[in-house]
């Protein structure tokens, strides 16, 4: 399941949505806005997204991970809009029979998401505001 959304999510609720008793292993990655970056205070963050392309890329990543790691159920949720320190950003849940594959699949999805999915962060630091990517 893929979702891009402005609003927050509940990890418990999302786990319930993909409950499957065949799966002995559920691995969860929860990314949130951290309070410091490179030793400087983060005030807030803004996320822009190319929604149509991001959904397409996330579906490709989920399909590839499902085949590669025998995933039975998975969920990838990413927020956009304005977020403050402590807010949830991204949730990845992977459920499979094998715990090792679940851990590997979760890492695989996260690394590809960071590399390929067109979601863009603007950081509001205490002394600077910038888009990631060196511009």
């Amino acid at each position, binding site marked *: 399941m893929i979702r891009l959304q402005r609003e927050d999510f509940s990890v418990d609720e999302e786990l319930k949505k993909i409950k499957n008793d065949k799966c002995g292993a559920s691995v969860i990655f929860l990314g949130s806005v951290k309070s410091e970056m490179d030793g400087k205070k983060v005030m807030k963050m803004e996320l822009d997204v190319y929604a149509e392309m991001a959904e*397409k890329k996330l579906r490709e990543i989920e399909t590839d991970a499902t085949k590669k790691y025998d995933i039975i159920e998975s969920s990838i949720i990413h927020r956009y809009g304005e977020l403050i320190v402590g807010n949830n950003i991204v949730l990845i849940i992977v459920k499979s029979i094998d715990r090792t594959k679940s851990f590997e699949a979760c890492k695989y999805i996260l690394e590809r998401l960071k590399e390929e999915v067109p979601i*863009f962060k603007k950081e509001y630091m205490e002394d600077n505001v910038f888009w990631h990517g060196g511009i």
Partner: protein
Amino acid sequence: MRILVKYFAFFKEKTGVNQECIEMGNGKTIAELLKIIIEKYNLQNKENIVLSLNQEYVKDDVPLQDGDEVALMTPSSGG
């Protein structure tokens, strides 16, 4: 031909638009489209522009067709 150009992140702010249609002669490449956009909006740091064509990442030497959708983005930084 008409190309739909979408702008994200830094480029949305810099141009002040989310998207626009740009008219070009047939047989042009993304590099030629980019030249028009860079001049129109006085963009700099051309090497940091990430491009997509019809929702797939591409280099700027790809030829365009009428109705194509091109996006200008910064590098992905989600997660």
